[in-house]
């Protein structure tokens, strides 16, 4: 395909707005409308506030966003199932949509007949269907069953047939909504491969998906829609990361709110329990088994795992920013302080300890780990109640991470070891990729390149 035609816009979405009337109680008939006029109450829900974007021919674009942000509505507008309130949408060429598969399938008709019906709904003529029939049947892998009524098909077979028709329409623009979960793993791989082929042939593709992996593999560009507006647009990898880290932040904030609620409840309970009965001293020296079964304290993530003898116990752990504020989202390049508080049950029996921390990425990659002994060749003299702080420069790249903390004896016995004690997210303005940021200086012909301003 010529370079100039690549520049041509296949889809132009220009300042599109869309709202829905959500009826709380709707009368359909004349009588109901007349009698219960005030019952026809409805809310106007503005789904798309102002969306504009263009897609070039042969380009693949992914739409992401949390549920209800308007991405599926955008896709429905593109297929012309819905029409915008204002603004225009221009699409050049034949559109095929993989939004609802198997439209018009009749259970009593054979697979072959349904191919004709279904393909005709995509606007194919008989001749065009005839020429594609074999490809469709081959792709669906349903040769033996093609003349059986569709009602005898399993749901996987049904979807395979439907997908095969939709993908073989030879559309100029293909719209896909979260349907790459068709059939078994083999068939999914086949669909994926077919999509890549179709894309290579110059078909314009728009995908709505929650699977960032799929979007990153197929799409050239990614559009993040939030509350009916485009929040970010660009290379899938980065947009996805920003999206994920924001999702993470929202999740953490919600968790933090829950935690505070729980904390308040716990304090209340503690107050109520105070003065009732003093706990016998021997119970305080809990053994390891007992400790691991204990309810996790409030400063731990719910999914945390606690091990250790309990001779030394962490009483608090927090990640602090440069202002000493406890936070769960940091940027690449921030200075982070990890502050640990501990309680030592019998300092005379366990005089020395070594504190350490480790950071794991969400996918279990061990990113970093160190301890006092490694760094200083010395041991911490344990106090009945003490505080340890460690300050480090965060070179981690955007993603979700878990913090592990531990304190152990010189012989290696763990007094307390809490894995996944806290989750935190890292965001970045930079676009470098990998696990961590290696500060890089570029030289071209011996001349140092100036860094981008604002970075």
């Amino acid at each position, binding site marked *: 395909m010529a370079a100039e035609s690549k520049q041509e816009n296949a889809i132009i979405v220009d300042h599109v707005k869309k709202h*829905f*009337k959500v009826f709380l109680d709707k009368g*359909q*008939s*004349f*009588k109901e409308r007349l009698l219960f006029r005030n019952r026809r109450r409805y809310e106007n829900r503005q789904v798309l506030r102002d969306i504009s974007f263009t897609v070039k021919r042969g380009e693949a674009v992914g739409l992401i966003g949390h549920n209800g942000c308007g991405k599926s509505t955008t896709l*429905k507008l593109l*297929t*012309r*199932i*819905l*029409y915008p309130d204002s603004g225009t949408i221009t699409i050049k060429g034949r*559109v095929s*949509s993989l*939004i*609802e598969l198997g*439209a*018009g399938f*009749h259970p009593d008709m054979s697979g072959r007949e349904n191919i*004709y*019906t279904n*393909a*005709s*709904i*995509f*606007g*194919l*003529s*008989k001749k065009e*269907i005839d020429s594609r029939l074999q490809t469709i049947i081959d792709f669906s892998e349903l040769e033996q069953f093609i003349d059986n009524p569709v009602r005898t098909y399993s749901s996987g077979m049904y979807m395979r047939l439907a997908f095969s028709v939709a993908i073989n329409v030879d559309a100029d623009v293909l719209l896909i909504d979260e349907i790459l979960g068709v059939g078994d793993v083999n068939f999914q791989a086949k669909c994926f491969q077919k999509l890549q082929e179709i894309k290579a042939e110059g078909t314009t593709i728009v995908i709505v998906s929650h699977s960032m992996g799929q979007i990153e593999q197929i799409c050239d560009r990614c559009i993040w829609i939030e509350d009916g507006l485009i929040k970010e647009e660009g290379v899938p990898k980065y947009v996805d990361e920003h999206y994920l880290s924001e999702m993470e932040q929202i999740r953490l904030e919600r968790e933090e709110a829950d935690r505070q609620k729980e904390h308040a409840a716990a304090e209340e309970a503690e107050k109520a329990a105070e003065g009732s009965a003093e706990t016998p001293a021997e119970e305080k020296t809990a053994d390891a088994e007992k400790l691991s079964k204990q309810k996790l304290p409030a400063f731990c993530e719910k999914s945390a795992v606690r091990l250790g003898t309990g001779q030394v116990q962490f009483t608090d752990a927090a990640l602090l920013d440069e202002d000493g504020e406890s936070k769960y989202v940091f940027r690449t390049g921030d200075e982070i302080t990890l502050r640990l508080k501990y309680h030592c049950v019998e300092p005379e029996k366990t005089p020395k300890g070594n504190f350490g921390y480790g950071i794991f990425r969400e996918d279990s990659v061990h990113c970093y780990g160190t301890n006092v002994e490694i760094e200083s060749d010395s041991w911490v003299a344990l106090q009945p109640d003490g505080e340890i702080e460690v300050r480090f420069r965060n070179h981690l790249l955007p993603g979700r991470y878990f913090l592990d903390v531990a304190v152990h004896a010189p012989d290696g016995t763990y007094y307390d070891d809490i894995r996944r004690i806290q989750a935190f997210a890292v965001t970045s303005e930079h676009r470098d990729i990998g696990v961590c940021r290696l500060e890089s200086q570029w030289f071209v012909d011996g001349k140092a390149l100036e860094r981008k301003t604002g970075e």
Partner: protein
Amino acid sequence: MKICKEIYQYRQMIFSLVKKDLRGRYKGSVLGFLWTFINPLMQLVVYTFVFTYIMKAGIDKYYLYLFVALIPWIFFSSAITGGSSSIVAQKDLIKKIYFPREVIPISYVTSCFVNMLLCFLIIFPVMVISGISLNPLALLCLPVIMIVEYFLALGMAMLSSAVTVYFRDLEHILGIITMVWMYMTPIFYSIDMIPEKLRFVYHINPMSSVISCYRDVLYYAQVPDLTSLLEAVVLGALFLVLGMLAFGKLKKGFAEEL
């Protein structure tokens, strides 16, 4: 114009919907497709009996006189009343996928039309048996009349199907309207029997000229009155354009409303 091109592109869809409709209509019944013929045939037998032996209408071969008018009317009225619910009936398709929405009323009216054509297969033998000579020149006009009626029915069906989506009562209201309309159309009687001062009603009724034309060809075996045919053509075109325009406006809200 663009929409016409698109509808042409989707012709296979119209074809398969019509096929599905015709096939599905008598599905599961023992006689199946034969019912298409049995119904009008039985009607004809009843009319012949009633109007030849009980109510003598004073019109020669009244059963045929009535029959050639009634078959086209049944097509027209079923296209409107049944057509009005056609969009609502296909809501799953409309909410799921894009295609020119016009395809649905077109398919419905076409399947009614095909049914009428099959009924006509009965009319011709009856004509021959009744001793009515077939006038070849007049018969040439028959397709034209049919097409005019088709467009008339299509225009009405487009309008009624689109409005029914927003206003479901229309379906039932149309039942009454078509009944009144039937008696306002010279089906059971001839247009000459109408008092002069009421004639104007029949002139604005496009179906009266269409029915008269059918009767001219199939009962009187003569070339129909060209002015009344022309009137029908103009009205047919007008209805179709109006129906298409209204449909085009209303169709944008279908998916939301259904």
